[in-house]
């Protein structure tokens, strides 16, 4: 019963999307909308076919995805152990707190000028923007996650002979992993806004570059195609991330 009504709801969603696209197409064809400001769905699809043909669409999408992934993975790999360490040491938390507090409010955009000055229009510069945009908030998520651990479990582990390092590795890390992953999911979205803004400002490839370049040549269909590609890519990565999450946390499965 529920599954049937669920699949019906999928058709409702699909239907509403098709109606929307149909209306949009119709308004364009009837001349109510100027194609320069808003090209029709078929124009965008035609652009997509053309860019798939010459390989540029795949190239831009992969370039942005790669930059997000490298920046995000490096930032997470540093933030997870560092966050767990800070979460279990009040002394070092106090040492690093002022810097984290100063870094956290800075939007990744504000790092673009400095990063261009230091690194030029390079891949490393793109990675660094993603890193700077996601590191401090990730770190705070992880420190917060370590606080959700039941202190009784830490006691039990110590009572069974666990050292400080054992407690971090065997109790705090796995115990806060569900919250860490929830936080990283949000951070992955933020990493995408980082990379698109970096590419809008200065890049030679990537979806942000594609959008900016489309605007320069008054190819509004390229601009919209770039935006649609961002949505689709983020959606696909989100699904993959969820699969990965389920594999990583078998004990939370009911």
């Amino acid at each position: 019963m529920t599954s049937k009504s669920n699949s019906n709801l999928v058709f409702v969603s699909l239907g509403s999307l098709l109606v929307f696209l149909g209306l949009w197409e119709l308004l364009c064809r009837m001349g109510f909308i100027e194609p320069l400001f808003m090209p029709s769905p078929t124009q965008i699809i035609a652009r997509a076919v053309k860019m798939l043909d010459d390989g540029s669409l795949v190239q831009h999408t992969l370039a942005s995805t790669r930059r997000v992934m490298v920046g995000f993975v490096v930032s997470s790999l540093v933030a997870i152990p560092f966050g767990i360490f800070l979460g279990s040491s009040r002394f070092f938390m106090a040492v690093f707190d002022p810097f984290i507090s100063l870094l956290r409010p800075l939007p990744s955009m504000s790092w673009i000028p400095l990063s261009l000055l230091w690194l030029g229009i390079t891949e490393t510069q793109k990675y660094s923007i993603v890193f700077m945009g996601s590191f401090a908030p990730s770190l705070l998520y992880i420190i917060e996650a370590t606080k959700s651990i039941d202190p009784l479990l830490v006691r039990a582990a110590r009572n069974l002979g666990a050292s400080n390092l054992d407690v971090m590795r065997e109790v705090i890390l796995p115990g806060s992993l569900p919250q860490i992953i929830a936080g990283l999911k949000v951070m992955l979205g933020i990493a995408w806004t980082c990379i698109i803004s970096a590419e809008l400002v200065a890049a030679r490839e990537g979806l942000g570059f594609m959008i900016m370049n489309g605007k320069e040549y008054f190819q509004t269909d390229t601009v919209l195609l770039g935006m649609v590609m961002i949505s689709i890519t983020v959606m696909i990565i989100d699904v993959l991330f969820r699969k990965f999450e389920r594999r990583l946390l078998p004990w939370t499965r009911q």
Partner: protein
Amino acid sequence: MDTPVTPSAETPRNGIMENAAPKISVKGVTKVFSSKRGEVTALKDLSLDIRDGEFLVIVGASGCGKSTLLNLVAGFDSATHGEVLLDGRPVTGITPECGMIFQQYALFPWKTVQENVEFGLKMKRMPRSERKERAAKFIDLVGLNGFEKTYPHHLSGGMKQRVSIARSLANNPQVMLLDEPFAALDAMTRQVLQEQLVRIYEKHRKTIIFITHSIDEALLLSSRIVVMTARPGRIAQEITNDLPHPRNADVQLSDRYLELKRHIWSSVQAEVLKSMEVETR
């Protein structure tokens, strides 16, 4: 009352060496907790010796400092005055020699039953195959065969506590500290686990300190019972439990059992009333 209970100092201890040095020695321990609302003395000048292989049950009203005492023995906390000795050496930190069993089980939810039981062995860097073998032995001892790969949230409370007992035993502590371990379980499960614990005690002869507020539980399990006073906690009474084993239904209906129960209740009751007065004041 016609002296139904002999003071422990004069009682012969069933099978336990009288002159041997105590396994655990609590010497003049005072514990004061400071908070914003002022200081609370949880324990005051408490002294207690526990002999090797003894099953000591501590009974007392809630808030009498029973758990505080256990935490001091386990090394989770340190005394404000006085000291706790384990085999004659002062307890200065958390020691795996004193395995703790918590009322809330404290199992690691991300580890399977087997991984939980293996935890202490993993901390000792025991090789995987050896760990597995040893864990299997203790999972078997508590009757949880077939649940090795199960995660704790699929287990009932009674099963969780059995995992916790197996986890502690696998680590082979000299002393087992149990902090109201069966308080959260239903009556039937509690009875099964009590019997299981007695069997484990008889087989492994650990020194056990067991905290409860159930007098029946104390009488069923203990070789000696200590009644604690209301806050600040001190020892109100010590009773050697000379009830015969196994302590089955017949024993539980015997005159001696009822006599001991009445005796303990009269002193616990006085303490409960005292602690209620403190709270309402």
